[in-house]
């Protein structure tokens, strides 16, 4: 059997069908992810509409610099991921591995920055719960802002961790030479997932960090 047909799963007729199924599969999965985050976005929108002042006060306590840097870091990791997919299409194994490692690095950088931000919140007693101390306007509803802040960025970080794990596996598979110009579906599919996680952050950043910074 020729080398490429090893990659063809038994239920598919040809590689073309298998690739289209994989890509469509990830897009359908991303629909479920959009709706999953959508539930939290709904709650956030409702409470921001009802308690606008408290959300402005809460957003002031977020570190805008770290947030913006994180956005650029994630955008950069999207770029390197796209380049990784491109090199997989061209069958350039070394370029693929280096871009994947870059993406992994940037992803971990994002999580490190996020960790720093969380520790700041922890020291400033801004973590919702018994010892939540907020001296700004309307602490009662500001706690609601922070619970949505932690819920949304927390689930986003969780998706980042899953993404990093996925990329590590893909890096290992490309190291073993499993991909070539004809067959590189896992790379492209994990690329779609990574870009989706970036898009979620593109919406999270303005919603959480830029609430009324114009004062």
């Amino acid at each position: 059997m020729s080398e490429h047909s090893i990659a063809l799963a038994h239920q598919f007729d040809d590689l073309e069908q298998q690739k289209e199924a994989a890509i469509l599969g990830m897009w359908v999965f991303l629909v479920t992810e959009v709706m999953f985050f959508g539930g939290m976005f709904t709650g956030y929108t409702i409470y921001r509409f009802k308690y606008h002042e408290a959300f402005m006060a809460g957003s002031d306590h977020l570190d805008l610099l770290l947030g913006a840097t994180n956005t650029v870091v994630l955008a950069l990791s999207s770029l390197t991921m796209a380049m990784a997919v491109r090199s997989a299409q061209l069958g350039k194994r070394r370029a693929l591995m280096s871009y994947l490692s870059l993406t992994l690095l940037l992803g971990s950088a994002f999580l490190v920055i996020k960790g720093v931000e969380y520790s700041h919140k922890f020291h400033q007693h801004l973590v919702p719960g018994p010892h939540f101390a907020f001296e700004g306007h309307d602490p009662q509803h500001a706690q609601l802002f922070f619970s949505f802040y932690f819920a949304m960025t927390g689930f986003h970080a969780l998706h980042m961790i899953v993404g990093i794990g996925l990329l590590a596996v893909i890096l290992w598979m490309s190291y073993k030479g499993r991909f070539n110009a004809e067959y590189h579906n896992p790379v492209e599919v994990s690329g779609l997932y990574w870009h989706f996680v970036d898009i979620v952050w593109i919406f999270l950043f303005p919603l959480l960090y830029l609430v009324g910074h114009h004062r």
Partner: protein
Amino acid sequence: MTPDASPMLAGLAAALQAGVPIFPDQASSIARRVDLLYYFLTGVALFFSALIFSTVFYFAIKYRQRSPDERPLPIHGSLSLEILWSVVPLLLTMVMFFWGATLFYEIRTSPSDATTLYVVGKQWMWKIQHPEGQREINMLHVPVGHPVRLVMTSEDVIHSFFIPAFRIKMDVLPGRYTDLWFTATKPGTYHLFCAEYCGTKHSAMRGSVVVLEPADYQAWLTGAPAGETPEVAGARLFRQFNCHTCHEAGPTSRGPSLHEVYGKTVRLRTGETVAVDDAYLRESILLSNAKVVAGFEPVMPTYQGQISEEGVLHLLAYIKSLTREEGKGAQP
């Protein structure tokens, strides 16, 4: 297979003789009209059910398989029939919608001359407060023919105030005022249920509504032990939590004056304007820094957990009384 409904009909007939109710009393002004709509819906339902059951039954018998190699004519379908049984149900449903929506609008807008009672739902009991001061647990005495409006809130979970004989129901939520109104038309005693599951004794959270002739109602009013009226209780609480120190100290006071304020709009520190209604007053008492009036500092302590739901209702009644001289009891 014949849809064999005979055991049900026999059972219903037996139930009728045994005096078992098959249909609820019509004891409120809207009950008759809701039942009219219900008869219409039942008629449509019975008609189409009978149509489908009999057609399926008829086709099953008339076109049963005579011989295994029978060859029925292939019929693709007919556009005109499809249009017919799309448009006809659409028209029927739109009739149902408009009839239901107009009646719903009436059910949800209380007349302005209704007397307001306060209802507080608490896990597994109803506490009812009359404007004249009477307080009742799981009992509600109302006069015949006079519209009554209930302003309701809950101290814990979501309940639902349901009087089947009046055909009205409204959920009672914590942290929010909901209201419903009715005009009792037939004296008697009717069931009061909690319709939204609220925990262990949900099925025990029942009561009864006693509808009295106006004369008997007056007799009951005078006879029943009348506690403080809500306004008097509110004034007492106003002193007790020394709200007057900030809200009645004249022009230099730290809190906005509460005279002539109910029902009007007021500008907040943030520039928004908000109507001063029950919800705003309740939020400003319990979560006081949420919407602070322009020109004042957010220094008011929160009374969450110190003042009970009844206390807040009494304070509201007191604040409304400060505006009564000018407006005629403005509605929230």
